């Protein structure tokens, strides 16, 4: 029932794999699946419809055999379209020449405005600014109290008084000027977009403070309604962007994508956890990956192609397949891998990795002791680790500045990994590609197509 998007996409692509050319029927079938997958990710129906039309135009008739495999080509087109929709660039906050820079937050009840206001103030602090928080949510019981606690945590003063929100905001602005604060973050009460009275109130707050940035705060778990809400707020307030909250859950965030597409305003910040520091500028490309629920295979391929020595990779692959993959090969591959960037970045791109592995913290330094241990072995030991006895082990440990237990552990893991990789090479997809490598190694072919559109 809770089949994830990635499973769905995998199923789609498995069917497409192995086809040299995609027929219109293939494309239609894939698109139907993609449509359902996007709808389940809460992407707005209107957006899905346009999206599918655009992807179809690009896929039908394209000579898919020319570049990647057809399945990968579909992924690429879908992915590129998602990125386009989400808006490529991360918004850069500029500051008013005459401070304070006023930021107004608005949204539905429970979207996370007050929490976001606290986090945003903390973020401005980290940028070296001197923000002032204004609590103009006088509706929800204890909302101002909550803001005061968050402000104290962030080391940011909070202004509020029991009056009406418009005058609180205006007085907050005056207070910011008086105190010489250079950023003003105004928290407002949650309101429904159809509540005319309250919408008029927030419009007056906006008029009284003339904000440089007006952000709509949206819950990542919102469904189809996100678009209607965003449109209504945009009509009243002329939004500059969106702050998306609670994306640390497992919601696919299709709502976010839809808002960008329909309202034409980017997602500027994302709130990614319960701590105050879990808040940063939003990176659209990462969201595209997230919505696809898949590793970023294409970036990985691009990276690999850019840095991996082809001939070397080919040799390693052949040995891997024959089960002769040695610690030397492993060391080589590790060097190649390091050239591709930080390990934590790569892990996210590996498709099919269990969730708990993907989310774990990876430390590139963790590779160092492994490297040291292997480098402390003789060539013979690297080729044939089974000859490593007690005295060799303690020599290796001394040489690498580790313990024999660590050497043992590495050897055990390596054995497991050999078995795992042998198993992998027997998998249909990878195995076939590998055998193609061995069969066609060295064959020259037409010039590589230029990547990217």
């Amino acid at each position, binding site marked *: 029932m809770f089949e994830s998007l990635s499973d769905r996409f995998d199923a789609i692509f498995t069917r497409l794999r192995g086809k040299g050319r995609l027929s219109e029927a293939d494309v239609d079938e894939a698109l139907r699946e993609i449509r359902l997958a996007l709808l389940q990710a809460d992407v707005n129906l209107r957006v899905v419809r346009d999206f599918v039309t655009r992807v179809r135009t690009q896929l039908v008739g394209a000579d898919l055999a020319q570049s990647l495999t057809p399945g990968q080509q579909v992924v690429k087109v879908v992915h590129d379209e998602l990125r386009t929709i989400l808006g490529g660039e991360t918004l850069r906050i500029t500051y008013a020449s005459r401070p304070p820079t006023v930021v107004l937050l608005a949204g539905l009840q429970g979207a996370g405005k007050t929490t976001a206001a606290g986090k945003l103030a903390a973020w401005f602090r980290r940028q070296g600014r001197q923000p002032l928080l204004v609590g103009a949510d006088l509706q929800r019981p204890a909302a101002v109290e909550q803001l005061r606690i968050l402000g104290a945590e962030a080391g940011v003063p909070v202004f509020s008084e029991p009056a009406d929100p418009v005058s609180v905001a205006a007085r907050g602005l005056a207070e910011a000027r008086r105190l010489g604060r250079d950023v003003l973050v105004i928290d407002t009460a949650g309101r429904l977009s159809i509540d005319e009275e309250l919408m008029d109130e927030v419009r007056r707050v906006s008029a009284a403070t003339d904000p440089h940035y007006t952000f709509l705060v949206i819950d990542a778990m919102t469904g189809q309604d996100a678009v209607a809400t965003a449109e209504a707020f945009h009509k009243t307030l002329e939004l500059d962007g969106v702050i998306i909250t609670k994306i640390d859950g497992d919601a696919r965030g299709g709502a976010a994508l839809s808002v960008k597409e329909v309202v034409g305003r980017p997602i500027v910040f994302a709130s990614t956890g319960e701590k105050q520091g879990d808040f940063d500028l939003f990176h659209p490309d990462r969201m595209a990956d997230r919505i696809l629920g898949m590793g970023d295979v294409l970036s990985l391929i691009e990276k690999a192609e850019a840095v991996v020595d082809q001939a070397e990779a080919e040799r390693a692959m052949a040995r891997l397949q024959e089960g002769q993959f040695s610690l030397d090969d492993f060391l080589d591959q590790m060097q190649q891998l390091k050239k591709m960037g930080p390990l934590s970045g790569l892990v996210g791109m590996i498709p099919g990795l269990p969730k708990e592995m993907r989310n774990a913290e990876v430390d590139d330094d963790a590779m160092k002791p492994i490297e040291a241990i292997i480098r402390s072995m003789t060539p013979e030991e690297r080729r044939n680790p089974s000859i490593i006895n007690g005295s060799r082990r303690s020599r290796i440990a001394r040489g690498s500045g580790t313990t024999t237990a660590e050497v043992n552990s590495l050897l055990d*893991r390596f054995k497991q990994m050999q078995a795992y990789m042998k198993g992998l090479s027997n998998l249909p997809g990878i195995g076939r590609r590998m055998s193609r490598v061995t069969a066609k190694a060295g064959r020259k072919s037409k010039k590589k197509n230029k990547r990217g559109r």
Partner: protein
Amino acid sequence: MLNDLILAGSSAAGAIVIAGGTYGLVRTHRRGRLAPPRPPAPPRPAPVAVEEAEAPPDEEMVVVLPERPRLRERLGKARSLFGGYLTSVRSRDRIDETTWEELEEALILADVGVEVTAGVLDDLRTRVKAGNVGTPEELVGLLRDDLVGRLQADRSLHLEPDVTNVWLFVGVNGVGKTTTIGKVGLQQARGGRSVVMAAGDTFRAAAADQLAMWGDRVGVEVVRGNEGGDPGAVIFDAVQHAAAGHADLVLADTAGRLHTKVNLMEELKKVRRVAERPPGKVTESLLVLDATTGQNGLIQAKQFAEAVGLTGVVITKLDGTAKGGIALAVETELGIPVKLIGVGESAEDLVEFDPVEFVDALVGAGD
């Protein structure tokens, strides 16, 4: 680069394999080496205060509840979009592919979800094929009946004699748990029950203050603990306090938590275990869901059900533009009945769920 393209692809495949392998190696290696000792559990902080709210007026308060607000009235404005779809469906003189598409879109836009929508439409198609339905008008009627037919359940809120009933409110952040408790507290107090509210949200800044303000308004006692303290301890004290004062019902607030946070879900299980300790008994365990929630609501419901065994769902904020179709998905796919819905700001606006009314509002039928 003149290398074979396939080779390019496969070298990437190789890189993936090796990256995966290396990662596994590095990670397990690290885990082997670095398993940190578990920090000792923090000592259970003693709840600081049992806050006596303004003593409620002792005399029997004759409260005349205003007439139950009709969902349809509340949804008047919100329905225009949906209504538009079905008006278009009805205005046509025959059932064709467009009709089906429009029905599908109407359901999807209401957040009913792909699975339930497909199920409902398959049902309808079968019946249309059987020849019992001729006009789109009839089809809309059939859709309405089909949806109502899927929503049959016991929706009563349970109270048992001779125990301290605990109604546990759970959900993700920002759905309206604290507000819902305030409203339920008011209604139950007016209904003649003796109620204690437990400020089990010790995490969110000022959450206990928010509940305390409700306590003042409603005139019921609020038991609270330290901010950042152990929620289980707060609930425990509330149950003890309620039992000592012969109160019937403890409304237990909990901190909003994303269902993906393993530790927090474990904490919730513990809260429930504590609440079950005699004389306490959890007679309702209610998931609060925001009507704007999309398909993630189904996953939330499933996860919370696994953790604390849900007995019902409360849908809040149905007075906005969101249709709350996720309620339909949760009830039909997981069998968890929707018990209450929130259709406005005031306490009277939290009402029993009525399937017919809900479906009529959802499909814009019954005009």
